[in-house]
């Protein structure tokens, strides 16, 4: 019977192609939509993990929260400074477990890049956010005039890049995060101080006062277990003048809300497409009942049972669904992977394509779902065809 189903599909190419295209459309919508939603969720989780702190201290006058957020989400470059003593003062606040300073420097134009890049200096002894991430790509520590680059910085390991005419050696490329952190370059504080001096020589000052060389851009705070983060946040704001304490969760919440909105829209679109396509498939199969009644009547006449006929109809629709599912998933995969950067920029949200195994699982799931939906849409038609009366059907078709 299965060979008969395959012959039926092959030798009625118009009908088969129409059914395959319909299910391909279904699969494309599900796989493409799900990939975008999953990539956004993945990006958000990655951002949360990369920020890795409960509170971030930044200079009050430096940046608004939104543009500060953009630095992480979209790779906007920027720099702002405050006195380095903020780190030690923050550690005196009850509930603060760790305080890790970072210094930002926006390059003008480095050899490595056609766009401005963000240079971030970390203190290896205090950092608890960036180093675990760097450690995945680099054994050992960042040395003097050595940098680790985000995955979107066009520089290979071993390559020398110039930032403010300073030669920096790339010793690691970091794993993607799907955020603006992918376009940043990381170095230790010694290297950063040299870069700051070089920038100073170019007329880009980082000094807060005329004689103050010791600055930081942000301090990442880890709150001790058992302490309320909001309380610590308030205490930090009270103790530190001209410093704004931003809860990372509130930053994430904004992104999370946007992501939820995008997810809802995509999910709604998928549902609408599925309902429409299912109804079209249902109608198509009902129309096919009339066309194929005589064929099934002949099979019945020759001794095919109702069960065999039903199975044959379901097998054919499942094969159409499987083929359509594979085609839809392939087209969607090509689209999602090819236009990942475009999707990321147009949505303005952290976007990180899931792991290969997740993509494979989603693809296989979508293909099986397409076959199941195709079979479900044809179930009524299969039932009708299995109950065709040969005497009546052949007389009508005569």
């Amino acid at each position, binding site marked *: 019977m299965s060979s*008969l189903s395959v012959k039926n599909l092959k030798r009625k190419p118009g009908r088969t192609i129409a059914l395959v295209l319909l299910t391909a459309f279904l699969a494309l919508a599900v796989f493409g939509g799900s990939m975008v939603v999953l990539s956004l969720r993945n990006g958000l989780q990655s951002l949360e993990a990369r920020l890795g702190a409960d509170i971030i201290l930044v200079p009050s006058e430096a940046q608004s929260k939104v543009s500060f957020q953009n630095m992480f989400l979209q790779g906007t470059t920027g720099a702002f400074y405050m006195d380095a003593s903020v780190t030690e003062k923050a550690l005196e606040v009850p509930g603060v477990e760790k305080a890790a300073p970072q210094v930002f420097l926006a390059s003008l134009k480095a050899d490595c890049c056609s766009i401005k890049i963000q240079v971030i200096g970390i203190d290896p002894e205090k950092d608890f956010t960036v180093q675990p991430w760097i450690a995945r790509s680099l054994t050992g520590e960042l040395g003097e005039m050595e940098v680790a680059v985000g995955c979107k910085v066009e520089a290979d390991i071993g390559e020398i890049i110039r930032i403010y005419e300073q030669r920096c050696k790339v010793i690691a490329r970091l794993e993607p995060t799907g955020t603006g952190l992918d376009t940043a370059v990381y170095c230790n504080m010694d290297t950063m101080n040299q870069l700051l001096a070089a920038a100073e020589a170019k007329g880009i000052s980082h000094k807060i006062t005329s004689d103050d060389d010791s600055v930081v851009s942000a301090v990442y705070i880890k709150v001790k277990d058992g302490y309320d983060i909001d309380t610590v946040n308030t205490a930090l704001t009270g103790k530190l003048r001209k410093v704004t304490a931003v809860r990372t969760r509130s930053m994430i919440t904004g992104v999370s809300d946007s992501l939820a909105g995008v997810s809802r829209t995509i999910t709604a679109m998928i549902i609408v497409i599925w309902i429409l396509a299912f109804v079209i498939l249902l109608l198509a199969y009902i129309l096919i009942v009339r066309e194929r009644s005589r064929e099934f009547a002949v099979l019945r006449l020759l001794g095919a049972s109702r069960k065999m006929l039903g199975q044959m109809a379901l097998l054919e629709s499942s094969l159409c669904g499987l083929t359509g599912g594979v085609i839809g998933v392939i087209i969607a995969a090509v689209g999602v992977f090819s236009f990942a950067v475009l999707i990321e920029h147009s949505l303005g949200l952290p976007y990180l394509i899931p792991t290969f195994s997740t993509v494979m699982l989603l693809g296989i799931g979508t293909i099986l779902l397409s076959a199941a939906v195709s079979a479900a849409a044809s179930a009524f038609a299969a039932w009708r065809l299995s109950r065709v009366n040969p005497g009546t059907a052949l007389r009508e078709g005569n």
Partner: protein
Amino acid sequence: MILKAEGISKTFFRNTGSANYFYAVSPLSIEILPESVTVLTGRSGSGKTTLLNMLAGILEPTEGKVLLDDTDLYSLKDDVLSRLRNERIGVVPQARSAVDTLTVMENILLPARLYGKHAPAEEARQWMEQFGIDSLADAMPRELSGGELRRMAIIRAVVQDPDILFADEPTGDLDDENTEKVLSALYSFAHDQKKAVFIVTHENDALKYADRLYKMEKGRIGLQENQSGGAL
């Protein structure tokens, strides 16, 4: 093998005002015997095809039983009855009965392939040669004339090697020469291979091949004395 119908009838619904149900076949009994050709004649609409369908196990009678040996066909579950029909009952329907997506040869071997049995391709070729359609083995049904399709359906039923073969107007689309070939072949099938053949026709060509001749009129059946003698 003996196929026996006991008191079978068939009524259909027809919205005609006073009497909504009418008898397509009035209660009747009939036996189809092996090594014989039974011919049923009658006008169009007399109930011949309805009776054939009931005897062939594809249309359940309103009342009565159809027994193949001692098995009541319509008491069987669908899958059992279907398999029994595939193995023991061949049908040549009046209408065009080719599966359009299969070649002529694939159509002929389809009954065997339905249950994964050995497909008698060589035997099929011999029959196709005998019926003059051997060059059409790989043709698609849409390329065949009505007469060629009719011969294909007869070969399919014969190659199925059933105990009883029902043929509904088997010579309807055929010229005189092919009509003789087909009727002669069916006669030989019955007598040489000890099978039962039941032919429904409204033409006179088949009468001379009939071992038993029935006539049907307005749903009622009567046994006729065969003037032709029932043999060649």
